[in-house]
């Protein structure tokens, strides 16, 4: 019995050590996944948020992108729109957030590919958005490029991907 308890304790300690190690020194992949989760959280919007909170949310969201970010949007109603730079992105997001009642954004699928030099990465992402509580969820595939800037991962480019070609 003592032997089993000792083995269990060793296994438990090893698992705890592994978990601590991962928490203290996260891999680039878990950092990028964390960044995407933070972007989704910042892009989401609760129905009862006041205008100041909405503006702060836009600023927070813009902070995840590089200063020279380029966003190409080619979706229904926004064909061929291009956003150049973090400031334009912040203004566009602020305007969109002011006109929406609520939005819940999620990235349920993200296929990450990190460059061998670990300074840049690409993600194929499925973005979903429940807007204003409507029945039909908006689903869009995106290609997201990341770069490590001053030791921090930032989004440098976002492109719309057409899963189904017209």
């Amino acid at each position: 019995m003592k032997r089993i308890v000792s083995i269990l304790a060793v296994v438990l300690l090893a698992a705890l050590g592994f978990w601590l190690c991962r928490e203290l020194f996260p891999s680039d992949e878990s950092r990028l996944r964390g960044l995407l989760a933070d972007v989704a959280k910042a892009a989401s919007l609760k129905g009862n948020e006041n205008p100041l909170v909405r503006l702060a949310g836009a600023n927070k969201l813009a902070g995840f992108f590089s200063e020279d970010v380029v966003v190409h949007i080619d979706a229904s109603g926004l064909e061929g729109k291009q956003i150049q730079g973090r400031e334009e992105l912040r203004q566009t997001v602020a305007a969109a957030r002011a006109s929406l009642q609520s939005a819940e954004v999620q990235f349920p699928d993200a296929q990450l590919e990190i460059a061998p030099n670990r300074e840049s990465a690409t993600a194929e992402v499925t973005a979903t958005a429940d807007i204003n509580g409507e029945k039909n969820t908006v689903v869009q595939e995106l290609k997201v490029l990341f770069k490590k800037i001053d030791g921090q991962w930032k989004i440098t480019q976002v492109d719309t991907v057409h899963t189904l070609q017209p």
Partner: protein
Amino acid sequence: MKLNAEPRVEQDQVDQASTKPPSSEVASPWLRLLVGRQPKRTLVRLVVLVAGVFVLFRFVFIGVRIEGISMEPTYHNGRIGLVERLAYRYSLPKRGDVVAIRIAGERRMYLKRVIGLPGERVAVHRGNVYINGEKLDEPYVRAPREPWEEPEVRLGEHEYYVVGDNRSMPGRWHEHGRVDASRITGKLLF
């Protein structure tokens, strides 16, 4: 033979139980209810069951919950379904098949009906589909059609044309079009 032999062993064990319960059998009735008479066998059965379910749902089937209205009235919002991954391992998608289409991954997928096959010309005029210039009979489209217009496209060697059954919604809100065969994950069974 083996089946007949086993109860005799149990009888022996029952006889012995009057003096001392065997170490392999569970004494407490509550524990027996939970893990059975022979915990080792129950454990083996449980492991086999879990492994079987894991293999089935990792490599053979995908459980799906349908969201949205683009496949109405055939498949309603909220319905649970099962996609067979191996459906197109030895055969190709056929016209009329309802298929799951991978987006970036497999946690969210499109569910659409195949209407155009590789090499065919597909066009949509006033909501009606034309394959190689001939109108396609679509009994699964039951609601009145919106006047969708799509210019004719020729499908590539590995391309299929997919669309949902609900044509009563505006075309711009209904994802449809050409898809590469590599994105087709499986066929909806029910």
